[in-house]
């Protein structure tokens, strides 16, 4: 009976660990593919299309990363 109970506990723990591992895969996948710096060519003048920016903010398309866009760009320094 003890052996059966032990097997049952192990099975339940494996299920729990599988869920934890799945979430860790999600975190690793995000870090590997979605948190990298944007490849933006720096320099020159840019005009912000404010209406498009507003519409994209409202539609939620700019929400997948925290605000990293304001970081300093080395090549833009005088």
């Amino acid at each position, binding site marked *: 009976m003890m052996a059966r109970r032990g097997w049952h506990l192990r099975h339940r723990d494996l299920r*729990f660990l599988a*869920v934890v591992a799945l979430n860790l895969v999600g975190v690793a996948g*995000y870090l590997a593919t979605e948190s990298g710096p*944007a490849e933006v060519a720096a320099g020159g003048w840019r*005009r912000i299309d404010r209406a498009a920016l507003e519409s994209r*903010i409202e539609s939620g398309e700019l929400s997948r990363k925290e605000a990293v866009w304001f*970081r300093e760009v080395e090549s833009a320094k005088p």
Partner: protein
Amino acid sequence: MAPLTLDRVDALSGATLSSRAALEAISRTARAAGQTAFGRAFGATPPPRPPPWEQPAVVATAVLLLAFFPVWRSGRDTPRLLYQLAVLAVLGLWLNTPLTEVDLINLSLGQVAGLTENPLRWLLIGFAALTTVLLGPVWCGYVCPFGALQELLGRIGRRLGLRAYPDRPVETRVRFLKYLLLTAVLLAAWWTGESRHAAFDPMQHVFAGRLAGWLGVIAVVTLLAALVYYRFWCRYFCPVGAFLNLGNKLALAQHLGPKRQIERCDLGVTDDFDVDCIRCHRCIDAVDVGLPHRPPARTAAKPILEETGE
């Protein structure tokens, strides 16, 4: 002069307030630049920002935070449940402004908005800091909207008979994941000076209703797991929760609150200053604890000679 296409604007948080702040910052910067470079104003002058007490978001949050104290002192399950519903509605669905590890990083890097610029953020951070030192991580137990969402899912899961607990030795080891994640995101942020490595937290994305990509995977797994495992993200993954948990070792004024019935805790909390307690106070009314289904804690191993009676 090609316009800046928004494919190149790569990042804004999902927080409603962040989005508004970004737009406002762009507008103000453009006006200031126009004034400086060309000596003329572009666009209409925005109205002055109202004082904090005239901002509905700040007032609603202040009321919510003040209401915490009587609810916390009562230690009862029903007021806490109602409070969590309010928290979920105001700080989650309306304002989408939970505390995340990005706040920790920004504070540690000194990248914080001024008090007048963002009084709501300061109100939340100040409340969390003060209560954590005085009462322990009550932010997690009562005020975090993502914690509230998971707990509500957990209550549903318990009613559906889904709640389960891993064996305690397994859980004890897995709960240290959040401390590892906290250490990793802080080191990465201090090393690179950026907070983007810490943006894997699904909180704001869930409340913004955006579940695409890997963050969608994390969010869906977390919310489904919360049906089964009590506060799955909070207990095993949340870096900011790991940081606040350290307040358990202080909790300088916890005696002002209700007496916890620690022997009823279904999460393995063992004493008043146990670092794993999230100060949920479920042990007091024991309405939502799944203790009957919980395997007993393993007692310390006895010496073989004593066990065998030799």
